[in-house]
């Protein structure tokens, strides 16, 4: 039954985003599916609107309370739009019928751009899979969901649960102090435009290479290579005190038996010191492997969750009016938020589609246009897509990254949102 009224407190990860988001820092991420046919916008819009009552956590609008923001039910009709040129563009919910996600169409592509306060990559992927499945159903295709499409399953209250709060343990808090990280600087594109470089390769042959040659995982290898590319192309890194830090979001659902569609991920970090005079890729891989093993521990993750939730449970923070909290969040984020990371790498993993849908969704993108160069990964049909999103005009780090993959014997295919002639505009 469709609920007429409901509301949610923002989860721990979401609380800061409304205060700190703007044109330069949208905190919006993108998921796209490329279909085997041209998208019909009317049917797509119908598909989204039919699904919204099922996806309560997406069918909301952001409201201001006296002390905190909150999500309130939103029953307004949702409109799909033609895709815009700017990837992960900042938008105001009031211009989007109150909704905090956008659904775009372009030729054979359906794109879901989600404000991070609403959900993380895993939650948004469930939503996009359901939208696409419903779209094909409305187009008249007889598809079987194989238990892989959330909208075909009954609603569970656990989908709307704030699992940061439900896993809070006040006796198990870790210290979250973070040192500052090295920053990549350079000239940016105009109009908040973000350059996207999509690097595709065959997953199995890549996994074979990283396992046999380096005994690491795909994520560990790409994290280390990303850091090694920055180290190799940043002439001012060695001798500086700040390390290269790659933040890697970890999906916490498997660790804490969660099925929530709301945010439930936490960053781990791979850190490479600047005081070491020379790094090799092999050394970076060793460091990455060790740091992953150390941080991917349920007790440590639990301690970090508790520390984060403990912060929002602090009495003095709670009683601070929202307007003052917003100012404090802005100042805090400007001082600390971006200073603790050099880059990020978010690997969403495999897009698990029902058998009947596999030939209808031919490719997928996952983009997170964050601070500096943001790397994301998604695997579909034996193919892994690594997407590098950068607001900077300098391509040397990306070039090093791609050239190294080629040197490793990987057959690389590139796609980009760059076009000849863009230099005059951007």
């Amino acid at each position: 039954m469709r609920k007429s009224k409901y509301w949610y407190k923002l989860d721990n990860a979401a609380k800061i985003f409304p205060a700190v988001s703007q044109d330069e820092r949208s905190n919006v991420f993108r998921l796209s599916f490329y279909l085997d046919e041209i998208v019909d916008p009317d049917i797509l819009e119908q598909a989204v609107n039919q699904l919204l009552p099922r996806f309560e956590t997406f069918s909301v609008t952001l409201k201001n309370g006296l002390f905190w923001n909150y999500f309130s039910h939103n029953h307004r009709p949702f409109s799909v739009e033609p895709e815009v040129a700017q990837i992960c563009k900042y938008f105001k919910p009031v211009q989007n019928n109150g909704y905090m996600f956008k659904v775009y169409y372009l030729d054979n592509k359906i794109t879901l751009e989600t404000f991070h306060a609403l959900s993380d990559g895993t939650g948004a992927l469930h939503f996009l899979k359901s939208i696409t499945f419903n779209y094909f159903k409305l187009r008249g295709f007889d598809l079987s969901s194989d238990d892989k499409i959330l909208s075909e399953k009954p609603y569970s209250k656990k989908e709307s649960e704030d699992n940061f709060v439900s896993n809070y343990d006040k006796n198990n808090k870790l210290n979250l102090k973070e040192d500052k990280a090295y920053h990549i600087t350079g000239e940016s594109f105009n109009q908040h435009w973000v350059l996207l470089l999509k690097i595709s390769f065959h997953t199995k042959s890549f996994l074979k290479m990283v396992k046999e040659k380096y005994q690491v995982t795909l994520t560990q290898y790409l994290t280390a290579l990303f850091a090694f590319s920055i180290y190799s192309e940043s002439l001012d890194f060695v001798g500086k005190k700040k390390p290269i830090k790659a933040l890697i979001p970890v999906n916490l659902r498997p660790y804490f038996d969660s099925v929530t569609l709301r945010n439930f991920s936490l960053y781990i970090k791979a850190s490479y010191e600047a005081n070491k005079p020379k790094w090799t890729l092999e050394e970076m891989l060793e460091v990455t492997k060790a740091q992953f093993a150390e941080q991917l521990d349920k007790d440590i993750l639990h301690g970090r969750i508790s520390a984060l939730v403990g912060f929002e449970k602090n009495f003095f923070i709670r009683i601070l009016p929202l307007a003052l909290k917003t100012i404090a969040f802005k100042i805090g984020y400007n001082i600390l938020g971006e200073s603790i990371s050099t880059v990020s790498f978010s690997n969403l993993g495999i897009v698990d589609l029902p058998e009947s849908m596999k030939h209808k969704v031919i490719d997928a993108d996952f983009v997170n246009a964050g601070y500096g160069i943001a790397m994301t990964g998604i695997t579909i049909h034996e193919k892994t897509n690594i997407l590098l999103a950068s607001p900077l005009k300098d391509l040397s780090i990306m070039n090093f990254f791609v050239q190294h993959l080629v040197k490793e014997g990987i057959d690389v295919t590139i796609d980009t949102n760059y076009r000849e002639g863009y230099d005059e505009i951007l």
Partner: protein
Amino acid sequence: MRYCKNCHIHYDTDLDHCMFCNQELEKNEENPSFYKFSIIKKKSRAKFFYRFFIFLNIISALVSIYVDYLSGPPLSWSWVVAVTNGYIIVMFLLMWPASLWTSRLSKIIIVSGLTIILLGLAINDYAWAIDYVFPLAILMNMIILTLLILLNRKKWFEYFGNLLILAIIGLIPGLLNLIDITTVTWPSSATFTYAVVTLLGIFILPSKSSREEFKRRFHI
């Protein structure tokens, strides 16, 4: 598909040259590549004019104060110009970003009321502003929001926040009256009474849905 012989990279887009080495790409006509994103257009100059308009108003205020100062203190007419320029800037900033029309209306009425008081102060005749304009503007806005709530009960919670803020502001004219800053009683008393009744209504007569709205708005 296209290929860079120099970098050994395949390109699945319609670029003619390699992004990294700028070499011409080899084209495979049997397997053509397409651009898969929306094409960017040149930026409109609207934002420049927006900033230029604000800049002109600031210059206008500063020049007026300077010219007025040259003719000898105390400053007189330039305050009127400066307050007007300030009002135009604030209104422009309020109107530019998208927001709910009820929220805009409340902000416009509050800013306009305060501007009229400032204009009154600038010409050393502010009694009419705080006696009549400010309380009646708040009263009118509270009545509009009350009517909206009564006429559109399904969306009452959309107007609730604004009404609560206005009711609290509506207490000010009554307090000014108590400490003898205002001289005409009835507009301030009417606004104060309406504000008190509204606040009492909000706090004493809560329905299940208004209790829920309180819980949302004041959750800590």
